[in-house]
């Protein structure tokens, strides 16, 4: 069992399998009934905004919801089990039954 405090995961950088930076974890969405972390809110870097073809927001920071299913490992950083292209495809896809990543 690898136990972390949520505050210790906040701020960790998120990487895809092709070694590209997605952004940083900013907060979590929790299910207080099942006591599970449902998803992580990742603040996307400017470069990743372009790569993921997200609409740039001038007022608020660009954030995406990353489901726990696509998180491969947690250490000094967070590794996803998808590449940037796969992440982009999932963001572009219509809402699936099992949301692994979505726009905010």
């Amino acid at each position: 069992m690898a136990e972390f405090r949520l505050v210790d995961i906040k701020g960790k950088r998120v990487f895809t399998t092709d070694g590209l930076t997605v952004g940083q974890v900013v907060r979590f969405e929790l299910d207080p009934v099942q006591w599970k972390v449902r998803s992580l809110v990742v603040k996307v870097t400017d470069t990743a905004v372009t790569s993921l073809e997200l609409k740039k927001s001038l007022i608020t920071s660009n954030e995406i919801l990353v489901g726990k299913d696509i998180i491969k490992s947690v250490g000094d950083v967070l590794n996803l089990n998808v590449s940037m292209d796969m992440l982009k495809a999932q963001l572009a896809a219509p809402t699936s039954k099992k949301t692994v990543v979505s726009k905010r």
Partner: protein
Amino acid sequence: MAMTIIKDSDLVGKHVILEDAADVGTVGDIYVDVYDWHITKFDLVVDKKYVERLGVDKKLIRRTTLPIKTHMVRAVGDVVHLSGNVEELRKSTRAVQPHEAAKEAHTAPTVKRDRPEEPKRYQHRSSDEDKPSKL
């Protein structure tokens, strides 16, 4: 039934209420097992007036916390409802300080770097030494 999803920041700071209506404190740090993303426990930041009743040492600077396993939680709404009363909570938990709880949690290994070599200090030489030696 709609699934309730809350932000972590909405849970932190919520008051923790027992079955005997005791407001024993607030939610502090939340702990998660990253294998299955299950929330295992949270720190209860004990209210001053319950520090003695819960049998924990009163600290002047550090806040007193008790680890609360999530299976003890009955409901989460405006407050967090725990099962049991003060006496049962006293029996079921063990007081730990925040830094101790942090130690228990897994932390990623940190790479220790050797301290950079200090720059060489040049010894002050007396003015006589500066003079070129006479041949």
